């Protein structure tokens, strides 16, 4: 049934769009046009689209495409790219002002380095600012000062993190993943030194097949892990600060509004809205006395506010 409906829509959509496009072009000349370009059909991107659309200001017309459907792309006043692939394509093929979402700062920097100089380009990064992550670590376990990370060859803001930690009175214990060694051995070496394990966005180390051994290893040593997303906390990390797709979509809608109001894109930015998740069961089991999520949030906001 649904499938048939779907097919029906597929056939009818161009017609409807054509009619709608005609009526809109005729009726409201000052309507702003936004092209939302998704890297692929991916559930989080679709959630982004939903929330983004709901939060758009009046007078904005939204066109949505994904990379599998790049034909008949309409002209737009602003291109919003969701994910790295879409952002890359937009930079290469479109001339309009564009901003990228749901991509990491590192990926955005790569893009910006390759963009045409004349055109405005901005972003909302996927990751939290290091200062916010460090603020959470310090707020949740102020007595623990040796923050360990495991990293592979991938570039990570090692020095930035080291500075951020030492500013807050903690120290970084960084253990590289040795090419000839095992993950378990490197983790063991790190856990002997560190009293907090911080996850970093490095799929070589943290992925669904390694997370089990990493979490079990850190739990055995009584070293809690600070995760990157809610999924980490669910799996057994102590806590994480992250932004939901919906929060980033709402921020993107805000950026869109600002662009149409001022005519210029604001600078690339970290997520403003965020969430803190805490796994109380893990805290209890590790005999850690931690404050409530609300108290942690106040502490993180205070730490961040103090730095601005």
């Amino acid at each position: 049934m649904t499938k048939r409906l779907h097919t029906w829509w597929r056939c009818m959509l161009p017609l409807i769009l054509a009619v709608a496009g005609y009526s809109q072009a005729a009726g409201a000349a000052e309507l702003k046009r936004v092209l939302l370009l998704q890297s692929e059909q991916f559930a989080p991107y679709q959630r982004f689209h939903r929330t983004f659309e709901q939060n758009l200001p009046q007078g904005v017309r939204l066109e949505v495409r994904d990379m599998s459907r790049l034909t008949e792309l309409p002209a737009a006043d602003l291109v919003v790219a969701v994910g790295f692939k879409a952002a890359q394509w937009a930079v290469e093929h479109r001339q309009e002002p564009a901003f990228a979402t749901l991509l990491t700062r590192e990926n955005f920097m790569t893009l910006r380095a390759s963009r045409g100089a004349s055109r405005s380009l901005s972003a909302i990064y996927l990751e939290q600012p290091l200062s916010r992550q460090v603020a959470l670590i310090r707020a949740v376990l102020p007595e623990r000062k040796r923050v360990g990370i495991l990293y592979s060859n991938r570039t990570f803001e090692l020095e930035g993190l080291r500075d951020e930690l030492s500013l807050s009175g903690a120290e970084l214990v960084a253990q590289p993943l040795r090419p000839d060694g095992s993950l378990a051995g490197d983790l063991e070496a790190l856990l002997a030194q560190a009293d907090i394990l911080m996850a970093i966005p490095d799929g070589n180390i943290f992925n669904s097949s390694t997370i089990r051994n990493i979490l079990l290893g850190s739990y055995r040593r009584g070293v809690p892990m600070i995760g990157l997303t809610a999924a980490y906390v669910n799996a057994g990390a102590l806590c994480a600060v992250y932004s939901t797709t919906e929060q980033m979509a709402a921020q993107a809608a805000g950026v869109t509004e600002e662009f149409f109001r001022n005519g210029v894109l604001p600078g690339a930015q970290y997520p403003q809205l965020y969430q803190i998740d805490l796994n109380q069961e893990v805290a209890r089991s590790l005999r850690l006395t931690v404050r409530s999520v609300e108290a942690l949030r106040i502490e993180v906001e205070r730490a961040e506010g103090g730095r601005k």
Partner: protein
Amino acid sequence: MKRLQFSVMLLYSCMALSVHAGEQTSDFDYFEEFPLVLSASRLAQPLSEAPNAMTVIDREMIVASGSRNIADLLKLVPGMYVSYYKGSQGFAAYHGATDQYARRMQVLIDGRSVYLPPLSTVDWADLPLSVEDIERIEVVRGPAAASYGANSTQGVISIVTRDADSVKGKQLSYTHGTHGINDVAARFGGGADAYDYRVTLAYKADNGYTDLSQLPAHVPVTLFNQNALLRNNNDSNQARMLNYRGNYHPDAQNSVDLQFGFSRDVQGVGFVDKNPSSVNPYNTNPASTNGNTPHDLFASAHFAQADWIRMLENDSELRLRFYHMHLDRHEAVNVYLGGTYFADPILQSVRSGRDELEVQHTLAWGAENRLVYGAAWRQDQLDAQGVPPASLISILGNGYAHSLKSDELRVFAHDEWHPMQPLLVNVGGMYERDRMGHENVSPRVALNLHFLPRHTLRMGSSVAYRTPAVAEEFFPALQPGDLVVTNPTATSAGLQAERMLSREIGYLGEFSEWGASLDLRLFSDQLSDGIYESKLSGRFVNGMSSELRGMEMTIKYQPGRNATLTLNAAHIQARSNCPALLAAGDTACSTVNPARYNDVLAGSIPVNSVSALYSRNMSRGWSVSSGFYYQDELQPYDRPVVDFQPAQRRVDLRLAKSFHDTGSWQGEAALTVQNLFDTAYTEYTANNVFDRRIFATLTLRW
């Protein structure tokens, strides 16, 4: 709700990941979905929320203690008596009644009960498990029948072995030392995405206690009669074992743990002293008989266990456990009778088997409750036989061959309820029924009040039962040194389960500013219908009662980031109805040591005991640790006065240096000295003199 949303995401992100695997982008790291790793069954209940007083001996303490034997680790539990009957036949009893069989403790290895009700003992020497494979030992101090069932009347020792993924690569270690200490162990482990395993192959040998040529200093020659033992020339032990643990976790919902192990152990048992000879000037009685001449006891054990854990919705999980275990002990005993050895030995053997199936469901209901409930079925099988040689049939009879089977069913439930923030209520109970007709309900309730952050007050009360052992029901006496045999012709009919009522008040405080914690407990344990061997009827009867009151304390202190100190102390006041039984003419309670004790049961419990463990990691891979053990004098309950055990003092020292990063090789060299000051105290029997033991261990990993 959140889980559902993420499981949808998981589906997509798996597709996405396969597409993006080769790319440099790390965007998808933020959309990666993970299985629930630290689930309810893995997470340990914090001490401050446990319904009982608990002691946890973790991996670091195990290493720091330098112990080669599992039983020795239990010396770090306040109120625990650990000793050895022969060189390798250890036993541990919490709160005394220190007889050789320690019949009132439940012992579990990864949930598998190794307490053998038919034999009513734990065979510590024949567990296919090496000390190095233990992750931690959790000891419930006090009855926990509501969670662990009958035979938990004094407490529960729960041994958690190292996970399947804890060993990666290969490891070889060799230990050599005094007293014939000679251990070799090979370990290796590995795995793939959904599978981990570890394997241990080990050989462990020692010569037991030093063979004495003269009496221990505290034993007057006048006490040394023909029952006294001096020579320890046959208490060596050689054990070989294999242990495997694998874990298969195909997806986020399922985890299957598979374990199996084998051990084969040869123990020297029996005594030469009972034969009058030139080497034993104290036994000059030519009519002396010895049914326990020196010989070897062969023990083979094996087990297999499977645990399947399945995660369900709403953080609830289902666990199914099955295990099978088997212990076979046999020996050939020469009989020395009226001055002559009989050439042909008596052949004795005992086979004990067990199968158990348990299903358990853990679920959270509401925000305040966590409920665990389940059911289990167990079958125990015991076959025993003794075959005397033809030449002795006229004297000893035809021998025996018996076999017994018993089934047990139990149903249990335990709820952890947080009615309001500072209060935690643990309510639980267990119903058990066995084929012999014993039926018990063991309830428990405990209140934990977190009256200040990091300060907890605990009040608890529970009732626990111990079902009579097969040996108690079907054999008139437990014969130390001999195999336990079943003899249905001499039953102790109508024997009921022992009952223990335990009450306690506990305090747990964490003083993080000093890096210290304090665990204090006042307790009262009342045993009624206690089973003992009455000398009036020659059978086991119910009728002993006792009351223990006392205090236990554990202090943990971390003076710095690299040092830890654990200090345990226990003070126990005991009294029993033994004097009354004696007045009624039952010599089972006759005190062998009237000068010191008029109550033989109370006298078997040390009034004060202390244990401490300090460990420190230093620079360049050096680490040092030291253990201290003190125990007041006592008179073992089932031993003659000559075995009176004076106060024990012992200091152990371990010094280790680890080598890291020398190529792909790593290793450690360690030197352990047990009883550093050579105080030569006695354990359980007067001839078991524990003098200084030194051994060195070299471990290589690659």
